[in-house]
């Protein structure tokens, strides 16, 4: 793994505009950054990222199977009691999932360490699947990137194939908070994939979702949704007025409710308890567990934090090294052994391994200056070195 300067494509902003990628710059700050890129060997991709991602995802599924049947586990994840039957039913029914993103710390040596699983509402999908791919193809065609370079990125093809497999017959809706360009972009991109998979689709704002007298969720014209992709965390959806209606709805959700047990930092403590010493896991415990004392330097994470919010880093002596503000934490915390993000030229990359269906499908990298990757992190493309 190395970071190298490749220089921007001249006119990439115009290319982005043509491709429909409007949020490459967010509130005046850059988000897409192709002045540099990361290069991996094929062995690194396959043995350090891909194979462990497949294995960890399988461990997560095994955990989910146990978790949904175990009230103590569900309670440890702060999943409210009225919601548990819905989560359990969705697992028992075999509701399929579409995608997720495992986030790793890895700097070129040793095993990649799992930091968390964004299993419910991951974004950075379009940038990964389309614009990063286009960057590589154009770089190859114009001779700016080494001939024979590849990329770990079958995300687009795999999403279309997966949607084709799991889409229920009927109208398939894609909903997000339309005031967020990234959110809407992610939902809109998945809608696009679904159209290519042969689905009849609609894109709408979360607030446009209706609930019919027959219990089905629907759009403004009251036509029922057979499927509903919602880029909206389950813990929020269940607090909403429509939350209690999910249980009896014939509408099938993506991600399914059972993803709640994975999109939760408590997962990390449970995985460590099930697989202590696993090379891709960091020791992790729920706060209050005496074993926390064994951690040395650690990171304190709210169970439901997103975008690095409320994440704090402590030295072995208990000195607070870094922290991000945010609204989370009343639901509880875990403490996870610190695996500092590597530093390349003063930048710290975080590796996101995409899972589509149940298999690894690609990679994205977000780069930040500080030790905690927040919403200001840049998206930086990657390639696989020619053999």
């Amino acid at each position: 793994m190395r970071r190298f300067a490749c220089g921007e494509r001249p006119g990439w902003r115009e290319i982005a505009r043509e491709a429909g990628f409007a949020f490459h710059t967010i509130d005046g700050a850059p988000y897409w950054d192709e002045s540099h890129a990361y290069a991996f060997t094929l062995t690194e991709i396959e043995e350090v990222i891909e194979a462990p991602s497949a294995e960890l995802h399988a461990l997560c599924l095994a955990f989910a199977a146990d978790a949904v049947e175990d009230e103590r586990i569900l309670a440890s994840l702060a999943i409210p009691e009225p919601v548990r039957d819905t989560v359990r039913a969705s697992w028992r029914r075999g509701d399929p999932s579409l995608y997720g993103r495992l986030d790793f710390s890895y700097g070129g040596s040793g095993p990649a360490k799992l930091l968390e699983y964004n299993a419910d509402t991951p974004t950075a999908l379009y940038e990964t699947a389309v614009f990063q791919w286009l960057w590589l193809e154009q770089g190859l065609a114009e001779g700016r990137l080494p001939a024979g370079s590849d990329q770990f990125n079958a995300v687009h093809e795999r999403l279309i194939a997966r949607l084709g497999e799991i889409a229920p017959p009927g109208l398939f809706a894609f909903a997000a908070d339309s005031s967020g360009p990234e959110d809407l972009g992610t939902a809109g991109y998945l809608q696009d994939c679904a159209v290519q998979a042969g689905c009849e689709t609609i894109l709408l704002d979360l607030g446009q979702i209706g609930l019919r007298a027959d219990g089905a969720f629907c759009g403004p014209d009251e036509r029922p949704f057979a499927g509903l992709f919602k880029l909206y965390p389950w813990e929020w959806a269940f607090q909403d007025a429509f939350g209690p209606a999910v249980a009896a709805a014939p509408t099938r959700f993506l991600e399914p409710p059972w993803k709640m047990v994975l999109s939760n930092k408590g997962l990390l403590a449970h995985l460590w308890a099930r697989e202590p010493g696993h090379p891709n896991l960091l020791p992790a415990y729920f706060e209050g567990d005496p074993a926390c004392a064994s951690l040395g330097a650690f990171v304190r994470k709210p169970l439901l934090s997103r975008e690095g919010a409320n994440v704090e880093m402590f030295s072995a002596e208990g000195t607070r090294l870094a922290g991000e503000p945010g609204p989370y934490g009343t639901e509880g915390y875990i403490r996870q052994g610190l695996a500092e993000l590597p530093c390349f030229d003063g930048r710290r990359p975080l590796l996101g391994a995409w899972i589509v269906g149940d298999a690894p499908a690609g990679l994205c990298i977000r780069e930040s200056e500080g030790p905690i990757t927040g919403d200001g992190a840049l998206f930086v493309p990657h390639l696989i070195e020619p053999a």
Partner: protein
Amino acid sequence: MADDREAQADFGRRRPAEPAPAVTPPDRSASKRSQTVSTVLVASAGLAALGLGSLDRTAPSKDVLVYVDAAACAADGIRPADECRSDYATARAAYPSTAPHYGSSPECEGHHGTSHCQPDPNAPTQFVPRMAGYLLGRRAADWVTPEPVYDHRQGHGGHDGSYCTGSGGKVSTGSGGHASSAKLKPAAAKATSFGGFGGSGKSFSSFGSS
């Protein structure tokens, strides 16, 4: 919704070295990336400009067709005969359970007109209007659920519609008679509610980690 599927952008075709890529790995099937990536909606509209479902949550009148039976529908020639028949079957099947029920014959006739009511065969103490016909969309693509319509006594409930639906929708035919073209004004009290999702949080982009 953004539905400009004509404007398909195939990124693969945009490369300068048309038609063959300048660089092709010897065995592309073994590569770790997608063979082709193209979008059908995103590229034409832009991710930020994708059309959303109509925000209009009122219930505007819909253009519908009303016929006494499938034969009348087929004879009119607007909808194919097989669709007339299947929609009629749908409406007919819905009739026993969706017909409005009344506790007495006068109550029923007050709403639907003299001799337009009968005891419910499944619950003889209750009265239901006879099925006067059925409504269906002008086109299959209109997604109008076929349903029974009932005669409506002129002026009852403040509307002069020719027919009504089981849920209280008003069906107005152009001539006031048994014409095929009609307007359906759904009942004012809608059972569907909106706005029940999205209240607990605002936009996020959830890559954060540490």
